[in-house]
């Protein structure tokens, strides 16, 4: 186990107060707070090493380039990709999905082809496919949900067919917490030669990721959900896919040679990184991955599972509270509804107690429709949360009931 007090002291914002109450930050599934190490890495870049990358012969440009490309190596190691060329920097999960939809999938699709996603996807892993389907005449197919928040994988063999050109599913649900058996999905899809994209936006911060072992074709995540900056993320794609994909955007850095007649595109991954990239974001994200690696993702996972078990127990003791999403294999996210009290009121009252929770549909409206609710209150934990904070949250929920009762 790591030293929780030391860990908390790495995050300056955790020491602040809200309305005179100590901050209890449990909106980590939306975005995580940043450790001093990440903040310092950006300050250090701008204070000592900054210039544009890949273009200059001068000293600073070379330093900046080395840091930027070093970050690619860090990402590669973090998810155990086999080559740095398989790591493309993007703005985040959303852009990664859009890139695969337009550069990989769209050119392959014929009318009547199918894209298979699941009922628990974040809107970011629905809309890009919907747009692609609209443009090509392809159809969107859905792996259905079960009452406990798991996917009904018994439906998979029937849904998979040669018409399916891609499967895109989330590794861990941001509204239910469910961890999906993506190995099984990948295995079955590959049986028919169908590639699979894994949305790792939630899983990246909570469990070890090994893209070679998973054997997924694409894996996307966002830096800001793993203690790094916003506006940066990464797309992992198997080399042979990247080699065959068309460019995403045109611009500087993604070309080798330009004339008005013909342009020769740069090698992978640069072919997919047009324009001056988010240099500070990339370096900050690498600092965040280093920070997480130092704590140890296995140790993090173990501690967070303890928090989850304790919180699930405390919350389910509250009368009138129903947890939405009770899959046996869950990450540290608890969505709930309180009988007769709207989540929006719950959120406001908990906020006044210093507790930052998310209320709403969490960009997963199909999940809300499935449970026939409009919104939930979501507590999403991180390794910097404590048992004591869960007691505070439980007290805040009691206060909600007292006030609204």
């Amino acid at each position, binding site marked *: 186990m790591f030293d929780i007090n030391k860990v908390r002291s790495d995050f300056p914002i955790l020491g602040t107060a809200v309305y005179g109450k100590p901050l209890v930050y449990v909106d980590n599934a939306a975005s995580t707070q940043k450790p001093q190490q990440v903040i310092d890495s950006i300050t250090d870049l701008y204070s000592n090493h900054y210039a544009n990358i890949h273009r200059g012969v001068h000293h600073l440009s070379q330093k900046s380039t080395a840091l930027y490309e070093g970050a690619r190596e860090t990402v590669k190691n973090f998810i155990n990709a086999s080559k740095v060329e398989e790591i493309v920097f993007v703005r985040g999960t959303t852009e990664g999905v859009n890139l695969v939809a337009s550069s990989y999938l769209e050119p392959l699709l014929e009318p009547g082809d199918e894209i298979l996603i699941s009922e628990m996807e974040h809107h970011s892993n629905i809309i890009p496919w919907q747009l692609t389907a609209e443009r090509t005449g392809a159809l969107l197919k859905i792996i259905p949900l079960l009452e406990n928040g798991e996917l009904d994988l018994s439906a998979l063999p029937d849904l998979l067919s040669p018409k399916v050109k891609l499967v895109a599913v989330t590794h861990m649900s941001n509204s239910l917490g469910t961890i999906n058996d993506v190995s099984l999905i990948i295995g079955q899809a590959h049986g028919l030669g169908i590639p699979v994209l894994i949305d790792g936006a939630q899983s990246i911060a909570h469990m070890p990721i090994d893209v070679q072992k998973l054997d997924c074709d694409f894996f996307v995540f966002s830096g800001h959900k793993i203690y790094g900056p916003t506006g940066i993320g990464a797309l992992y794609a198997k080399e042979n896919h990247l080699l065959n994909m068309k460019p995403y955007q045109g611009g500087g850095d993604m070309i080798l040679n330009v004339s008005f007649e013909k342009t020769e595109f740069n090698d992978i991954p640069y072919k997919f990184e047009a324009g001056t990239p988010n240099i500070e974001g990339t370096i900050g994200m690498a600092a965040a991955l280093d920070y997480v690696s130092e704590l140890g993702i296995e140790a993090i996972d173990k501690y967070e599972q303890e928090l989850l078990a304790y919180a699930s127990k405390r919350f389910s003791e509250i009368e009138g509270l129903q947890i939405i999403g009770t899959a046996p294999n869950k990450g540290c996210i608890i969505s709930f509804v309180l009988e007769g009290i709207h*989540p*929006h*009121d719950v959120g406001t009252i908990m906020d006044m107690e210093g507790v930052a929770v998310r209320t*709403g549909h969490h960009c997963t409206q199909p999940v809300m429709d499935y449970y026939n609710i*409009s*919104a939930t209150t979501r507590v999403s934990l991180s390794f910097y949360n404590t048992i004591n904070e869960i007691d505070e949250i439980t007290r805040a929920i009691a206060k909600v009931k007292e*006030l609204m009762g």
Partner: protein
Amino acid sequence: MSELRELYQEVILDHNKNPRNFKKLELHSHHANGHNPLCGDKLELFLDVVEGIIKDISFVGSGCAISTSSASLMTQFLKGKSIVETRHYFEDFHDLVTGKELDEEALEGLGKLAVFAGVQEFPARVKCASLSWHTLINALDSVDEPAATE
């Protein structure tokens, strides 16, 4: 806690639990749907306007305590008022919940609706309080699309 009591006053809690005029009006001259995509609040508003006067007004829907009670109190308040007055009240109510300076007379004019003054301390909740009013204006303007707040 005092700001919370200010927000969730007894009147508001009461109208949330037992919303008044909570039904569809079979006979109506105006009608609109309101939706706050942020929190999923939905309401449907019905008006029976005769010669510029709101003879009857009702709503159905689901939402948080602020939006439900606001709709309920609004319907009570507006029954018998003229359309011209109603548009003024909309402005005054909007000023009230967004914390703009309101003169004595305007505040008095809003009567019971003054309980929503507490909302100004909670910027994230202004849309909840004003959803029914935006829907009302849409109904009067007979816009068929659902009203979006702001």
